[in-house]
């Protein structure tokens, strides 16, 4: 029984915009399967009365007051951008030609 199929890995790679070759798909599908199966063993010891855990810290309601604080200057914000124009982040074409 595999935990994740080769097709699922291909699908996720596409969603994540990752170009993977057939060889890589075979390799990653196998590796991911080992990882998922290992993690799945946790489920074997979890009893009915143990709710699924999404956070490892026993905290709730961590809020901050609604008070503005200065962020980055525009120059600093744009400094890390690969490209910018008109005080904005410049990104390549979003839609492919056929779209």
């Amino acid at each position, binding site marked *: 029984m595999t935990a994740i199929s080769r097709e699922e890995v291909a*699908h*996720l790679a596409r*969603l994540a*915009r990752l170009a993977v070759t057939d060889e890589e798909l075979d390799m990653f599908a196998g590796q991911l399967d080992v990882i998922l199966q290992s993690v799945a063993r946790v489920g074997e010891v979890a009893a009915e009365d143990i709710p699924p855990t*999404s*956070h490892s*810290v026993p*905290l*709730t*309601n*961590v*809020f*901050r*007051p*609604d*008070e*503005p*604080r200065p*962020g*980055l*200057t*525009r120059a600093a*914000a*744009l400094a*890390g951008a690969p490209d910018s*124009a*008109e*005080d*904005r*982040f*410049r*990104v*390549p*074409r*979003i*839609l492919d030609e*056929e*779209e």
Partner: protein
Amino acid sequence: MTYADIVERYEPVIGLETHVELGTRTKMFCSCPTEFGAEPNTQVCPVCLALPGALPVVNAVAIESTIKIGLALNCSIAEWCRFARKNYFYPDMPKNFQISQYDEPLCFDGYLDVEVDGRTVRIEIERVHMEEDTGKTMHIGGSTGRIQGATESLVDYNRAGIPLIEIVTKPVTGTGAMAPEVAKAYVAELRDVLRGLGVSDVRMEQGSLRCDVNTSLNKPGEEWGTRTETKNVNSLRSVERAVRSEIIRQSGILDDGGKITQETRHFHEDTGQTTSGRSKETATDYRYFPEPDLVPVTPAREWVEEIRAGLPEMPRVRRLRLREAWGLSEHDMQSVLNAGAVDLIEATIVAGASSEGARKWWMGELARRSNETGQELDALGITPQWVAELVSLTDAGKLNDKLARQVVEAGLNGEGTPGEIMAARKLEVVSDTGALLEAIDAAIAANPDVAEKIRGGNQGAAGVLIGAVMKTTGGQADAKTVRGLILEKLK
């Protein structure tokens, strides 16, 4: 095929998803300010730009505002809920995901009652959840700034991370031909509720209230049809037009034996039509999972009850109360609402005017001017205080109707308060009885036959003499006083 024929044969089902930008001072997960119209990328920080290592922290006021909205919409408030990551690749979010809520919204299972043509329609609310707004993209190189054909895009992240509340209705059925009006009435009512709560400035034209409309058609007794989602609906009027145009378009396809494609459609303000969005089938697979950087939200019941106790009067309750207090029919109240005059009339009454007096001017001369110039009533430069003064002057008999109209005219031209205008223009009812009697004598002398009729008991004939007196006094007499004096004289 007329609209009436279409809704005879098909039942529309609608659903509305409304996004509201909260009016908090800071963003949802960071302390960046949220001023509208700021210079691009001047309200950003490592959190909303998704710089490595930055961690989000929830805005307490955003949670409180969301609970307020939920309670105002008669929702249950979750005892425990989480944020989730909605994963997608689009440069409007630098994180490559949007923090949202998935299957655990903060508020759920509510309703909002709206009035359409005197009928109350209950719109059931599926959920109210929290998320963050996206950045603004500008598309360069294509025609007319559209994304199609663009060679590059420029992004401003000032808006990215502003608290956004999504309010989703359950499917609304059984409204038939009224579906477009129901959709509009719902968004209008929701806007009024949100404005009353003070949680958002709810300006559709600035995008702080945005609406997507789902529409489908089915034949009576059959299952619901395939729905389309219409976006870009940016005014109340457009909500109504978008639903109507989708009903007409879909019925045309169904009548020809065609099938409705489940798709996103864009509404065009200029043509009133919708066009297909991206046709390419991109399966929406957002791979939601609990946001690991934010801990669960568990609003204490005491806090929720405290917020509930502090809620303002709901617009619908207020309307009913005012309608009763002002003694208006449903129809008259609707006119007042449509004119946007409720607050103004209420304030005018608070400033001392009778409800009749306040309504007469706001719904009369002032509404007429507002229609003519396309300005909102509250933008005419006339205040409730101003109208209250005018009403008190007419009530005291210092201004008759005709003079009061002249004062309003002058007031609209910015000539000052009613008192100042009266002084400057020498507009005052002639209360000097001697001067009036003189004019009355002249009128009687000029119309002996009329005077004879009145002496003979025909009081209706007095109108001729009153008219003559008004003419000599340049309209500055009080018709009632003149009438009394004439009848006294010709007893």
